[in-house]
């Protein structure tokens, strides 16, 4: 059907199994590679080449004095990596703290988003008066630029004058002097802001997956006595499982790499609870101009984020073999 892991097996491979020879040029059996050439070339130039350059920069002492002639920057080997990864390294606690903040932020956000988004997708997949209107309105938080979102929540969470503190004190739920933008609460402030802004992404993915399920399947399930929760468990969930898996991975990665939100909400000297990796890297690269250190930290960030991506791909392949 539509699930990524089933896609390869669902497509009958258009090559004759008997003759192992490669289809001739121009033959309809030969893959039209030219169709993917532009995409591959652009990805190579604009994503993969910069990654290689970043690797190289992470091994140099590139800073604001050597940036003019960046190829001549002094080579320092693995020094930046030792500074950040060795327990006694001068930047080790800074990196460890940022990794902790980033993981807490991205995992909390994803965990809160999944039920909200799936609930909305299930709800607006059913017939409902004014469904098109509701469906469109759900996208509003996602359409609002991240920068605007960050400003909006900065206003909401402002200490004393912010609407949240005013509301809390009016309802006698908390003090008017509750600090949301500094201290331990800042993580929650950022999580709430990002959940509100990013949940429609998962909602759209879930809705698209739900709409590929043919209505006949539900009719058949209803005849067999499976509707409501059981219909969801045995018909819907298996069919959208892989899309949900992809949504979890992409959502976690997107939150982990979100730079704009913490930058605009907290600036370049954030509380330690929200000093997430992208912000820390940005400060090291573009505020203190230690490009080499910033590059080394972003390589570490990349390594961390490849883990969920690899896990997802593994799971997808295992699912393929079991079939």
């Amino acid at each position, binding site marked *: 059907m539509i699930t990524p892991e089933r896609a390869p097996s669902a497509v009958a491979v258009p090559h004759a199994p008997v003759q192992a020879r490669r289809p001739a040029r121009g033959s*309809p059996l030969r893959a039209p590679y030219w169709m993917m050439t532009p995409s591959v070339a652009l990805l190579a130039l604009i994503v993969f080449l910069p990654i290689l350059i970043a690797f190289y920069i992470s091994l140099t002492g590139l800073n604001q004095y050597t940036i003019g002639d960046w190829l001549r920057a002094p080579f320092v080997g693995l020094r930046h990596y030792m500074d950040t990864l060795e327990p006694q390294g001068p930047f080790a606690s800074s990196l460890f703290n940022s990794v902790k903040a980033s993981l807490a932020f991205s995992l909390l956000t994803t965990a809160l988003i999944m039920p909200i988004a799936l609930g909305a997708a299930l709800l607006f997949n059913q017939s409902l008066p004014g469904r098109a209107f509701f469906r469109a309105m759900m996208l509003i938080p996602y359409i609002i630029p991240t920068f605007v979102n960050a400003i909006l929540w900065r*206003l909401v969470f402002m200490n004393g004058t912010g609407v949240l503190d005013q509301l809390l004190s009016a309802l006698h739920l908390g003090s008017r002097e509750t600090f949301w933008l500094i201290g331990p609460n800042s993580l929650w402030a950022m999580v709430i802001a990002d959940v509100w802004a990013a949940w429609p992404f998962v909602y759209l993915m879930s809705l698209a997956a739900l709409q590929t399920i043919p209505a006949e399947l539900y009719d058949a399930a209803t005849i067999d006595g499976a509707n409501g929760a059981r219909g969801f468990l045995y018909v819907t969930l298996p069919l959208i499982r892989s899309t949900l898996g992809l949504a979890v991975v992409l959502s976690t*990665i997107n939150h982990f790499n979100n730079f704009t939100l913490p930058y605009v909400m907290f600036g370049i000297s954030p509380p330690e609870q929200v000093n997430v990796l992208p912000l820390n890297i940005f400060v090291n690269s573009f505020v203190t101009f230690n490009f080499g250190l910033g590059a080394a930290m972003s390589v570490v960030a990349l390594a961390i984020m490849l883990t969920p991506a690899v896990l997802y791909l593994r799971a997808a392949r295992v699912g393929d073999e079991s079939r």
Partner: protein
Amino acid sequence: MIVAALARRPRTARRSRGAAWRYAAAMGYLAFVLLPVLYMVLVSLQDSVSAGTILVPKSLHWQTFAEMWSTVDLGLYLRNSLLIAILTGVSASVLALGAAYVVARFRFRFRNPFRISLLATQAVPGVLLLLPLFVIYVVIQHTLAIHIVGSYFGVVLTYMTFALPFAIWMLSVYVASLPKEIEEQALVDGAHRYEVLRYVTFPLAVPGLVVTFIFSFLLAWNDVLFASVLTSPSTRTIGVGLQNYIADNTLPLWNQLMAASIISAVPAVVLFMIVQKWIVAGLAAGSTKG
């Protein structure tokens, strides 16, 4: 319709109760989405002194919506953002369809590494790419004597490429779900591979393309990091431009910032209302394919 309703009479009560619950849930979601927006509207109608410190404006300060156009060049930023985001959405979707078609329909040696690298690129932090990318563009500018940094071309090229991995992935899954019998028939009838893609696969893939357009559009619309480096004052996008409301003034103009934010959301909202119909129409067509 009436006949059908009459025939189902015994279940009507249960149905309407279910519908009421669904409606209540829908209203709950609507409040969740709209309350922060309502707060933005309220702040935009406050005067610049009290803006952001109170909830309900003392008097409706409509002038904010007139003042904001002259504080910063909002019209220019909006035009730039729309142009860049639409070009990004269209070019990324079209390019991705070609690659997605090959990935979905053929097995080739680098198929799996390619798919893995698509997902892997999603894990790359933007700050990692920013400096190297800038360096690459400057080198290309010097060798080819073309203008990249500060031009629409450079920004669109960057966003388009960033949007490609997700678009290719999404579309390859979508194309794989389409029946390939029609394509094969067209090939047997002597159509070229390009014609098959253009006249058979493309129309069927429109719902998938709409989704990739949305995501690519939003990627371009939301970015601040790359736009702040790759745009010049004349190609500045709204995300960067909005910062001027609170950056250059001693008194942050929260009310004008919120008003400008609301205005800047209007084109995107209108676009999505139109796209909404496309999704529904595409799905209706998809459901009849049997």
